[in-house]
């Protein structure tokens, strides 16, 4: 149990949850929301004395009053940013709410709003939604659960190998006088032997809080490529929790590009619950001014012959802060596990900070696990070498930063997204 004083701090966050009581909903859903609210009210937001929160302060977040709105949110299609890839289908959510009229998916994929899926009694959905795990250990998940209503259910049918990439755009609009809190809850469900490439983009305008919780279910031998763009508005707060549950022989290739928001935390909890699973979540971050970004990853190996990868690299400028916390948990039966983790940061200014917490918790005796973490400055010798060939200092620095980040991008198996990330890096460097 966490100390009691936090509880009072929890109440403003739950004020708008009361409005839900008037809305018709299935009994189990109401009970779920109540559980979320109750659990959150006992803890409030985590403080820096919490395990896993030592490096990220939420003081800035607590100083703003956010409001949840149950009202329909929408946006003019013309105001939305263009698709990331020409050849793709896109699903749009505005302030967490699914926009069917702006969305399309390829054959073999179905998508619907979360409440529509609940109404249609999509098989397995209720069971998935109520299995939220320990909410007290995860206050953002508890808060998301207290407001469960928005978001989507996306399903790829058994055996469908979807060639056309699908983008999911989360567009958030913050009003100057009333900063919205959005709590989308997603389920991405890949049935047996199916395959999908997802691009998840988070963007918006003004001040808002995006607190999302995404469950990903990869049934046996399914393959999901998941490429995230955390490009929230500079004044926004982004907290996302992704829980990936992988079946036998499934492959998850996850990558996140983080450059947005003033305060952000992306948490990934990958459960490799069967054998022969490949699971990777890697990423890059580009931070400046007073930005703060936190990647927290857990790779949980349950069964033998699993492989997990976490490779993170980033550049930190101004007074920005980067945090990486990565854990590889190998359970007793997970023999022949291959777990790899690395974290490298380039600090571009004297005030920039990077904090890393690599963790290995291993109970099996025949495993191969490794980790490495470094932070440092640009290589002066390399910089001089480039300048001595006529490349101006600014350009030489940009080239070195690109090369530092490229090492991580090279692992991506989907070339078009690699190019978009490279473009993003170039644009960031030329600002």
């Amino acid at each position, binding site marked *: 149990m966490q100390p009691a004083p936090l509880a009072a701090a929890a109440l403003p966050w739950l004020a708008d949850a009361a409005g839900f009581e008037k809305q018709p909903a299935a009994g189990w859903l109401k009970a779920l929301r109540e559980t979320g609210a109750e659990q959150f009210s006992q803890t409030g937001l985590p403080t820096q004395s919490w395990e896993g929160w030592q490096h990220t302060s939420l003081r800035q977040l607590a100083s703003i009053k956010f409001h949840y709105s149950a009202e329909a949110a929408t946006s003019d299609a013309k105001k939305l940013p263009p698709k990331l890839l020409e050849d793709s289908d896109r699903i749009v959510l505005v302030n967490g709410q699914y926009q069917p009229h702006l969305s399309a998916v390829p054959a073999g994929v179905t998508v619907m709003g979360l409440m529509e899926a609940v109404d249609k009694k999509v098989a397995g959905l209720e069971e998935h939604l109520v299995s939220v795990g320990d909410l007290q250990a995860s206050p953002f998940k508890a808060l998301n659960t207290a407001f469960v209503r928005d978001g989507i259910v996306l399903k790829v049918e058994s055996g469908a190998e979807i060639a056309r990439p699908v983008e999911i755009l989360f567009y958030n609009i913050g009003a100057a006088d009333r900063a919205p809190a959005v709590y989308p809850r997603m389920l991405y469900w890949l049935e047996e032997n199916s395959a999908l490439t997802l691009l998840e983009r988070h963007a918006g305008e003004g001040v808002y809080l995006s607190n999302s919780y995404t469950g990903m279910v990869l049934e046996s031998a399914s393959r999901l490529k998941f490429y995230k763009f955390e490009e929230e508005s500079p004044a926004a707060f982004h907290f996302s929790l992704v829980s990936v549950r992988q079946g036998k022989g499934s492959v998850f290739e996850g990558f996140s590009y983080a450059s947005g928001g003033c305060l952000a935390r992306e948490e990934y909890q990958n459960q490799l619950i069967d054998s022969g699973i490949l699971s990777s979540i890697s990423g890059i971050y580009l931070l400046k001014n007073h930005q703060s970004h936190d990647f927290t990853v857990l790779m949980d190996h349950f069964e033998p012959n699993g492989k997990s990868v976490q490779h993170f690299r980033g550049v930190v400028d101004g007074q920005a802060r980067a945090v990486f916390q990565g854990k590889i948990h190998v359970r007793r039966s997970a023999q022949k596990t291959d777990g790899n983790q690395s974290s490298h940061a380039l600090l571009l200014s004297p005030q920039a900070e990077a904090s890393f917490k690599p963790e290995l918790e291993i109970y099996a005796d025949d495993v191969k696990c490794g980790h490495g973490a470094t932070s440092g400055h640009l290589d002066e010798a390399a910089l001089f070498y480039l300048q001595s*060939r*006529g490349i101006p*200092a600014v350009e030489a620095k940009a080239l070195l930063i690109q090369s530092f980040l490229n090492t991580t991008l090279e692992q991506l198996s989907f070339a078009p997204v690699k190019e978009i990330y490279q473009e993003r890096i170039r644009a960031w460097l030329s600002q």
Partner: protein
Amino acid sequence: MLKIENLHVTVAGREVLKGIDLSVEAGKVHAIMGPNGSGKSTLSYVLAGREGYEITKGRITFMGQDLLAMKPEDRAAAGLFLAFQYPVEIPGVSTTMFLKTAINAVRKKRGEKELDPVAFLKLQKQKLAQLGMDAEMLKRGVNVGFSGGEKKRNEVLQMAMLEPKLMVLDETDSGLDIDALKTVAEGVNAMRSPERSFLVITHYQRLLNYIKPDVVHVLAQGKIQKTGGPELALLLEEKGYAGFYGDGEAA
């Protein structure tokens, strides 16, 4: 082309160059020979503009300009090229990308038109063939996984692409076997012209069998101790640097 006058340089509080005077005319090859620690590499880095070297006295004029007032990239654009003793590895930047960025940066500064991709590749292919280099190398990160010989050849390739006026070769022969040495020297010799000058910095006479100097200087204890013709190099090969230490300092 290059004029060094009374150059004094301090590195980390220690005076390494103690009054160098040197003049290199257009079209000439000057060799600077000296024992380890004589200040050879310091001189080459000072010419190219590396940070960390404090010039306490003296001046350097290059093509009529005050070299010491110029940034390293501007020196390159003006036509100075340093072939590094230890070329730096830059993982993640392909050699082609590096060459293209460098050549266009230099062309831009020289007021020339940037090369389009087709013209660039054509030039690169031509220079590669001249140096007997494998195009496969260019896809790899700059100098990453290159052998000693490949690194030096890559330096000569860059030199050939950038077409400098003054080439400073810092211990280009170090770490090379005789075949690699010949190829590198041929690459350098192919660039000799009445408008180009070379400053060949070396410990051993060996390289000078392949790149024939017009003038040889002996650098020891931070000063040019002796200047002569090619025969001076042969004399050093035979007798060593012992005679240039003076003051009883050990060789």
